[in-house]
């Protein structure tokens, strides 16, 4: 679901927007069209069209008098309001969005239960009929260095870290400037300018073994970061196709996939999976065992078998 959209707007969407726009305008009474457009993600032409339309609305005997509003020289003027003074109540989806977002944000490093978010959330929860905060919880368990990374992000601080790389199965020392910290699918990641590669790289926070600031701070570049959650959409990351038994279908829910087929008669699905590291894939295949089959990379199947052999050697 995205706020962005183009093309003709359905009547429902236009009315929905009007019902949040009108109370806001009535409170202010005099607002430039341009301000309304940018605040409500509309073009100026759309704002003018819809406001002129509602200014024509009315019921006998008050035709044209429902909403006392006119637009002159790019400024909207609103008279004494009678209706639509308050926005429409929150629907169940919006209520959930607000509470879940608030509770999740309370779990981010630096959140303060006594601060404005904590106070605002309490008022919100009460208004939405929640009598106990324990009924809607977000748990974003933070590995050891999460708070240090958060502090570095806030300060633009360069840090030196020892990082265990799953793809090499070895620890390396790196100097990075953390720019974004985020939690996704139960793991914490840091996106950082990486000294070693000279690129923006994503690291898993639970694989940081030591971390200390170098004392240098770096002003972040103006280039905006792509939204978290799209870090695996990079086309350069290798894909493999797996056939998964019902017992292994959790893979499609847990890891980044491009697509998943509908289940066949036996409940098997085929997925295309983004593989950031072959080592990781090998471990995953080992865990899936007979419940997964690699369809397009025979060499991987062979290497998984070889690892299983090495592991078995320990038990002989």
């Amino acid at each position, binding site marked *: 679901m995205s*706020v962005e959209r183009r093309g003709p707007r359905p009547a429902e969407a236009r009315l929905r927007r009007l019902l949040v726009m009108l109370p806001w305008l009535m409170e202010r009474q005099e607002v430039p069209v341009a301000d309304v457009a940018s605040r409500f993600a509309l073009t100026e032409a759309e704002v003018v069209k819809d406001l002129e339309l*509602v200014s024509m609305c009315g019921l006998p005997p008050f035709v044209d008098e429902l909403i006392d509003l006119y637009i002159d020289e790019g400024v909207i003027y609103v008279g004494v309001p009678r209706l639509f003074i308050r926005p429409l109540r929150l629907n169940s989806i*919006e209520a959930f969005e607000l509470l879940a977002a608030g509770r999740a944000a309370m779990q981010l490093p630096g959140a303060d239960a006594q601060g404005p978010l904590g106070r605002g959330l309490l008022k919100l929860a009460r208004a939405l009929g929640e009598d106990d905060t*324990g*009924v809607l*919880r977000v748990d974003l368990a933070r590995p*050891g260095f999460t708070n240090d990374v958060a502090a570095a992000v806030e300060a633009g601080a360069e840090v030196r870290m020892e990082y265990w790389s799953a793809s090499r199965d070895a620890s390396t020392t790196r100097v990075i400037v953390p720019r*974004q910290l985020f939690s996704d699918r139960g793991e914490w990641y840091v996106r950082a300018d990486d000294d070693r590669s000279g690129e923006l790289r994503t690291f898993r926070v639970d694989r940081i073994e030591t971390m200390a600031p170098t004392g240098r701070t770096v002003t972040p570049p103006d280039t905006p970061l792509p939204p978290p959650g799209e870090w695996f959409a990079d086309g350069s990351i290798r894909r493999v196709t797996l056939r998964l038994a019902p017992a292994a279908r959790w893979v499609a829910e847990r890891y980044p996939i491009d697509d998943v087929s509908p289940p066949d008669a036996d409940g098997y699905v085929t997925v295309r999976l983004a593989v950031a590291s072959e080592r990781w894939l090998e471990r995953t295949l080992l865990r899936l065992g007979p419940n997964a089959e690699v369809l397009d990379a025979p060499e991987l199947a062979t290497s998984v078998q070889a690892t299983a052999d090495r592991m078995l050697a*320990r038990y002989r």
Partner: protein
Amino acid sequence: MADRVERLTNLLALLLETVEPLSLVAIAGRLHGQYPDGQTALRAAFERDKAALREIGVPIEQTIVTGGAEAGQTRYWIDRQRYELTDLELDQDEMRALQVAMAATRPGSASGQEAMWKLGAGLMEHGAAIAAIIPDDPWLPTLREAIAGRTQVRFTYRDIDRLVDPWGLLLRTGFWYLIGFDHERDERRTYRIDRIEAAVQPVPGSTFERPVGFDANEAFPDDPKLIGADPNVPDARVLIDAHRAGVARREFGDDRVVTAHEDGSVEVLVPCANMHAFRSWLLGYGEYAEVLEPTEARDAVISWLKAVAR
């Protein structure tokens, strides 16, 4: 024909302002010329408008006339108290904090943006430096409402139709869980919401009591190896090579390390009542871990590896 937004706005205004419930005929009369003439076309157009208003969240009340010449007729109105957002009395900094929270955890959510507009905030910003991705699920809003209103729900899970007292929701390890009391099973249960199979249906008129002091956070252990943990099943003893000993220490804490060998390898105690989760965890260590005891756990791992090695 007039723009549909005009008709919808007029209908909304009419139903908000009316002092008594209105029949469809009365509505069409007051909105003269805006609805088509024939009975069938009028009914169809009105139903479409009613659905559109309900879709955006307008609570349209209806009542059926009993007795008299108009018995059976449906009449409509909107209760302004129910229509309007109650004033949350948010201070500016609280509103700002909620907006930042939304941008950090639900960027790009159309419903989230709509909610912020209703509260009086502006357009959401993007690119929070500290963020969390919160997964979506179509049943979450319905379940939250049922939890707050103490209404029972019905849904299908693992092919079984269930009647559940919904106690709470928890997001953990990237998944949403519902914790509640299952009346078919007659016990407290935890369900992964993305695995709910058929529509979640609130049961009208039902109610239940939630246990005093219930907290979803403490409702079930966060380590999958502990789910279904049984105090009667002893922990497994696992040897971890020096190479990965530090990781194991960080994962379990020093008090689970029972032996530290001179070569740097360690022996740790790991719950194994949930054999499936235990095996999965062990295999994540690849060839750098070996389960020493109990025999059942050791055998389970060996037979799994044999199946993979072929």
